């Protein structure tokens, strides 16, 4: 399953400060997009708007043609009921910078939680969860608690958890930023295996090497404005905008 993401006029401000200034972005189904930008550029906000963790002031996000978090009422976009939004989110997996695993539940219970909450039979959810944990190389940790794992292992569990509902889209919010350098590789490796699996991936990261190697599409945001986008060979190797060049110089230095 896969679905294209269409973002139109994404606008958001917090207390007078505009963090997104009318971003338009279309991401083809099944592709990998990396969002780059200096801190405070609005890239996390944009990512969180895709699964409506962040409500847009103006604009919309559509997934495979379905509006996320809002619906058309007359000549306005109107926010959906929480229950409907929660249902829509099961099509969109989200991986957090700080993992946000549920610390009081075991690894297996973490992965099983969302499917069971949606009414999947416990036995089915369990066997699927074990398959996912095997896929991220952590089947032997199923009964451990998150705090007993390393950061890299926790993030791999978080990816398995995000995959548990077989979403069309996976969003990664700086998935390796909270990790020790030697643990970054194992997490990126898992994300790499998901590329080309048919799911649409959107990754906010500072790992330029990863972007160059895995991304189909690179987007550069600065101060809430989409400055530049294109294939990594263009945006990363020959950036047109001076701010992009500036940023890449700093990150790669």
């Amino acid at each position, binding site marked *: 399953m896969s679905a294209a993401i269409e973002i139109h006029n994404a606008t958001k401000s917090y207390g007078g400060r505009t963090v997104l200034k009318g971003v338009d972005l279309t991401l083809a189904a099944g592709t990998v997009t990396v969002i780059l930008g200096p801190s405070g550029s609005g890239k996390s906000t944009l990512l969180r708007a895709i699964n409506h*963790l962040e409500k847009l002031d103006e604009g919309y996000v559509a997934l495979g043609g379905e509006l996320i978090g809002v619906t058309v009422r007359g000549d306005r976009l109107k926010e959906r009921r929480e229950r409907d939004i929660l249902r829509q989110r099961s099509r969109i997996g989200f991986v957090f910078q700080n993992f946000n695993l*549920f610390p009081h539940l075991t690894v297996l219970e973490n992965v099983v939680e969302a499917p069971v909450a949606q009414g999947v039979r416990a036995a089915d959810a369990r066997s699927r969860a074990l398959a996912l944990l095997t896929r991220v190389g952590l089947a032997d940790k199923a009964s451990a608690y998150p705090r007993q794992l390393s950061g890299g292992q926790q993030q791999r569990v978080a990816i398995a958890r995000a995959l548990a509902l077989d979403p069309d889209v996976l969003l990664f919010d700086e998935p390796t930023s909270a990790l020790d350098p030697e643990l970054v590789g194992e997490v990126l490796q898992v994300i790499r295996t998901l590329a080309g699996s048919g799911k649409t991936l959107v990754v906010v990261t500072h790992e330029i090497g990863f972007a160059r190697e895995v991304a189909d599409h690179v987007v550069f945001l600065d101060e809430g404005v989409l400055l530049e986008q294109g294939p990594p060979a263009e945006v990363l190797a020959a950036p047109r905008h001076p701010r992009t060049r500036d940023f890449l110089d700093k990150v790669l230095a």
Partner: protein
Amino acid sequence: MSGLSTRVRAASDGGRASATPPGERGAPDDATAPGTPLPPGIDLKRLAERPVVPLRHPVRWVITAVVLVLLLNVVQTLFTNPAWEWSKVGTWLFAPAILKGLQLTLVATAISAVVSFLGGIVVALGRISGNPVLSTLSWLYIWLFRSVPLILVLIFLFNLGNLYPTIGIGVPFGPQLEVPTFTLLSSLALGVIGLSLSEIAYSAEVVRSGILAVDQGQHEAAKALGIPSRRQFTRIVLPQALRSIVPAYVNQIIGLLKASSLLFYVSLLDLFGVVQNLGSTYPTDIIPLLVVATIWYLVLTSAISVVQYYIERFYARGSVRVLPATPWQRVRGGLGGLVRSARSSQSSQSSQSARSSHSSPGGVR
């Protein structure tokens, strides 16, 4: 062996030092002040191979001894002062009247504890809800019942019949269903309501603080997974909140247990009430009766503390890497450890050289 010889040398140094001028006194061993360079001739590499001697705490021992002596003095008076009348304590402790009062204390406390925990969750949720009417009402409730003394609440409730002779529910200005206040509510029920009304206000704040202590990322993760709102609370937020709610709430329950003695003032005979009554009937037995009440309150509070320990342990799962052993496990482990170390020291003495037995002192593993 060599450690002993160092100490011997120090002692002999000290002995010699008494004859030398104060300035040079014990110089080789007293070079411990920070900033003092090591005196020459010490083979640090050799010292590094021996276990570091832990710091001793002589003052601790002195203070312990003083405190123990004072404590023993107090304990002694329990036996030597005949006014305690321990034989009467023994007879009163299980007297039917006392047990009946104890039962009432237990029932009132238990029901109020459960009701006020559930009520506390409701009021706390109201307080943090986005609905301005609900959050204002919850705030007002907490404000009111934290401000009014419990005894005032209780006496108010017991005069409810004067205030509202009948209690009814119905459509405003429409049909009503009415019953007389006192057929509806027994005095125990009124007592429990009074305790709960006041207790809910406190437990709501305890629950609210627990909910606020849960990391925002947990709410976000639950939302991002599309978990339905109610399940987000019962399965993700509340279990984590309980970790900080439990100790504070048990504190509340212990307060409640003791506050239930106020029921005496609305003519309910709880443990304290019974003791108070018996005290006026048998004025010579007042001290033993007070001791009996103290013993029962101690027993109840201890029982609550034991339960608290295990509940806290349950909710600590996942938040520490390894749960500490329970006291019972520690006792068993301690005995097992003693047996093991006794065995291992025997075998090491018989089969191994003195040097290797020196390197595993005590065998504390």
